[in-house]
């Protein structure tokens, strides 16, 4: 849930990158760190890793100031994907305002995707969040690897869910990462604006919100 501090006129939102182990959650965040050029951008904090695997989480803070002086912060977190870190995943997921589910496109990883998605549902319930109303985007990563599951198949499979359309990405190449993020910002805005009236009170409309937070260095990112 959003953390609004009326004294400081500060609104902090939390977005969590969730997904199976090795699906590219940290890579997504690192790409966002290097590609994004929002109004305000903090340091990417990569907490302890072992063999390049996330142990705790990664965090990237970005920010936007409204004309009203509203200090809008967006903290992007990744969770450790490995099964044994479930309590860490639950702690990071608590009070989330939006989720990016990073799935692995390789056919061999489809079971892991399903398991991780089930785990997400379960943990959301445990921390008191509703998967049906929480702004969420599902990204299928690693499109650069040969033999991945066909996009059409994936889109058809997910068509009847609230999370269609899926976003295809190759985080390693920086492709689709910003698209994913923008789609999430779009869905997040609907909910946050409904609650805090960003447009009327702080003159932050949907366009300002998305562009202000996802402005980027231009053409290095490409659509898939």
């Amino acid at each position: 849930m959003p953390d609004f501090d009326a004294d400081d006129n500060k609104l902090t939102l939390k977005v969590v990158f969730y997904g199976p182990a090795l699906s590219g959650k940290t890579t997504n965040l690192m790409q966002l760190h290097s590609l994004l050029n929002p109004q305000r951008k903090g340091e990417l904090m990569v907490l302890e890793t072992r063999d390049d695997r996330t142990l705790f989480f990664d965090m990237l803070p970005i920010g936007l100031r409204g004309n009203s002086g509203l200090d809008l912060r967006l903290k992007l977190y990744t969770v450790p994907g490995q099964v044994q870190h479930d309590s860490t995943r639950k702690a990071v997921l608590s009070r989330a305002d939006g989720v990016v589910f990073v799935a692995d496109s390789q056919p061999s990883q489809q079971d892991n995707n399903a398991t991780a998605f089930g785990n997400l549902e379960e943990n959301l319930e445990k921390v008191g969040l509703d998967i049906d109303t929480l702004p969420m985007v599902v990204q299928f990563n690693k499109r650069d690897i040969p033999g991945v599951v066909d996009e059409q198949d994936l889109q058809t499979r997910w068509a009847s869910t609230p999370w269609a359309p899926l976003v295809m990405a190759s985080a390693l190449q920086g492709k689709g990462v910003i698209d994913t993020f923008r789609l999430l910002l779009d869905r997040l805005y609907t909910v946050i604006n409904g609650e805090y009236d960003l447009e009327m009170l702080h003159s932050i409309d949907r366009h300002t919100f998305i562009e202000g937070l996802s402005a980027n260095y231009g053409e290095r990112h490409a659509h898939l």
Partner: protein
Amino acid sequence: MRTFEDDPSLEDLLSPEQRERLERLLSDLCTEPVRLTEQKSEGSVPVEFNLETIGWLSGGSRDERRAAANLIGFIMMFVAKYRLAANLHHDTTEASYAELQRQNEALKASEARYRELSEQLQDKVDEQVRVIQKNQQELFESARLRSVGQLAAGVAHEINNPIGFISSNLRVARDYLEDLREMVPASPNNQELLDDFRDLLTESMDGTSRVAGIVSDLKTFSSIDQADYSLCRINELLKSAVHLVQTEYNHSLQISERLAQLPAVTGHPSRLSQTFFNVLDNAAQALRDTDQEPAQGRILVQSRLEGDTIQVVIQDNGCGISEADRGRVFDAFFTTRPVGSGTGLGLTVARDTLRAHKGNVQIDSRPGTGTRVTLTIPMQGAQES
């Protein structure tokens, strides 16, 4: 409540000592001492970390201030990383612990429930086992008693006829003896012979009447002799039983009676008499078997009214019943007396009789001290005597 992800303040990141040391180290690098504070002051520059102004730096030259502020921001990143990881670890550990405790509580509750269920189950099983054992015992006893009863009925029937004509013949023979006395010459020798003959016949008649008594016992025991129930005066029955026992023991027993006024009850007089006699006979035997002086032996016979029941208490200060024998005293043919001197049916008859009267027999005994037998007879349809 603070969570691990709350933006840390300068205080959260650095202890006063650490902050002092950082100021000292930075001051060494600068031309003038620098100070790091939480409040903004004249000429200070903000120290930023992750979009957050965590403090203000003053002192040094303008360039030094900026460079030092950036340096602090950089250092703070590592401090904050550690702090974040530590806080997260703390949070998850606490959450896991709380979860474990919750599960532990649930487990305990469920364990307690199962223990209770199992206890209830055990109680039920025990109760059923008791019922089954009791039924089995009763079935066994009734089967045994039936067979013993049939045997006794057979024996009694077979003996009854011969003993009848033997005793009748003996009586006639004694009459004949008187006739003979008048016929033979009245010499002292003849008189002595005839007297002796008469004594022999009298003893034989006594013997047959005892045999008839045993047969009658057996008949009572096997319930062959189903005389109708009638109104009984318990005290009268007790008195005659006492009298019988005294006769048996040549009036050597010290029996005191304490009989209360009792209403007449519907019962089987001969069987009740038999019962009283059996219990009194046991008491007399117990006095004989005890180690103490025969003169010390006493039997107390009491009757009293307890609500709807009549209680007859026959108490002796004899040898008592040993622990091992106590469970078997009601068994048919169980006896501690020498072979031939007891049938082992006395208390069996007593119990069966009392059961037939819907009453019961209770025995309290201590070896070496004595025995108290309490016979309880309910007054069904009792009338004032």
